[in-house]
């Protein structure tokens, strides 16, 4: 009774405000055309967006959660990458 598995797709929607496409969820579809149609039905029933991307989930390479510290902690100590680190006298005005 088991059915052959239908490929999984990740769905990205650009909201009407023109922001970047944002991941909204995933769905199963036999091919890309059907995935776009299913994404329309599943994720934009209330005007959530005006553009859809679908990507085969198998095409995504993700960072390893075990490497989280090694990957992302170094940024924590680099305060000099932020504008507030630098002192500019008030007299100079907005910069």
């Amino acid at each position: 009774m088991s059915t052959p598995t239908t490929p999984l797709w990740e769905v990205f929607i650009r909201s009407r405000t023109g922001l970047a496409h944002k991941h909204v969820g995933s769905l199963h579809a036999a091919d890309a055309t059907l995935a776009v149609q299913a994404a329309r039905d599943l994720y934009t029933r209330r005007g959530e967006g005006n553009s859809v991307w679908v990507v085969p989930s198998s095409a995504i390479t993700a960072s390893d959660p075990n490497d989280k510290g090694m990957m992302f902690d170094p940024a924590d100590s680099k305060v000099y990458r932020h504008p507030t680190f630098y002192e500019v006298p008030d007299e100079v005005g907005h910069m």
Partner: protein
Amino acid sequence: MYAQSLNQQVEGTTAPEDAEAAARFQARVDAEERIEPNDWMPAAYRRTLVRQISQHAHSEIVGMLPEGNWITRAPSLRRKAALIAKVQDECGHGMYLYAAAETLGVTREQLVDELLAGKAKYSSIFNYPTLTWADIGAIGWLVDGAAIMNQIPLCRCSFGPYSRAMIRVCKEESFHQRQGYEIMLTLARGTAAQKVMAQDALNRWWWPCLMMFGPPDAQSQHSDASTRWKIKRFSNDALRQKFVDATVPQAHFLGLTLPDPALRFNEATSHWEFGEIDWTEFKQVLAGNGPCNRDRMAARRAAHTSGDWVREAAQAYAAKERARSAAAAGAA
């Protein structure tokens, strides 16, 4: 929703696990961090979530049946459009939830097969029949109302994909409840016969809705782990009381009475106290002996079987297209 009333036993841990990893996991949960699919998690946490989320998904899907029963007989185009939109939303909820369960390492096909084989549970409420149009009003108002009570705390569930699915679902539920209440209000303010119909629907749905929250706290001995893991935020009884307190005044506004002679407002606690729930009925329905259990399963199986050719055709077409573009790439 539904998940909660069914997911009574939390799996015991079988093998001794990495105690250090377990402590780190619990610390993250305690700090209100979200656990994501690739993160380390206790095997029992994973199993509990797979079962709860898939039961929840099945409930959304089976839940389309009682309401679908009235789509062709809705009394106006406005009501029909709303009902179709609602049933379509419920399908969407099922899809979001299956996808969340799949992140834990099960396949959609496995989950669907379990439901069709009668091995998986879904909410008891969907095993009751929709006899009149007023039942559509009562379902939206009461069943979706109870679902909302349950789903709002799940938006803060510790498992990221489940909590994100719940946030989407909750955004859509409010329309479901309001359209149901509007139907009840129209009937309650209509002819004498319409008012009788509304009262009859309320009489039949009230107690099954209270059962949706699951067994009393004293009897649900295994919710400790779910609470510790921050899957469950409120007890069954606390949520049930919240629902009763919110719903009784809404029924009174409709000019309808609740089918509970013991119902009374306690001035001291500011809560509505209600009568004894018939837990034997609940157990019977869960065991497969409700009024519509067999019908619901038969309808799901028929829908699945008659969709077989569509899935096969789509797969065959996709395979053909892949072969074509491979050949074209080879020729170029």
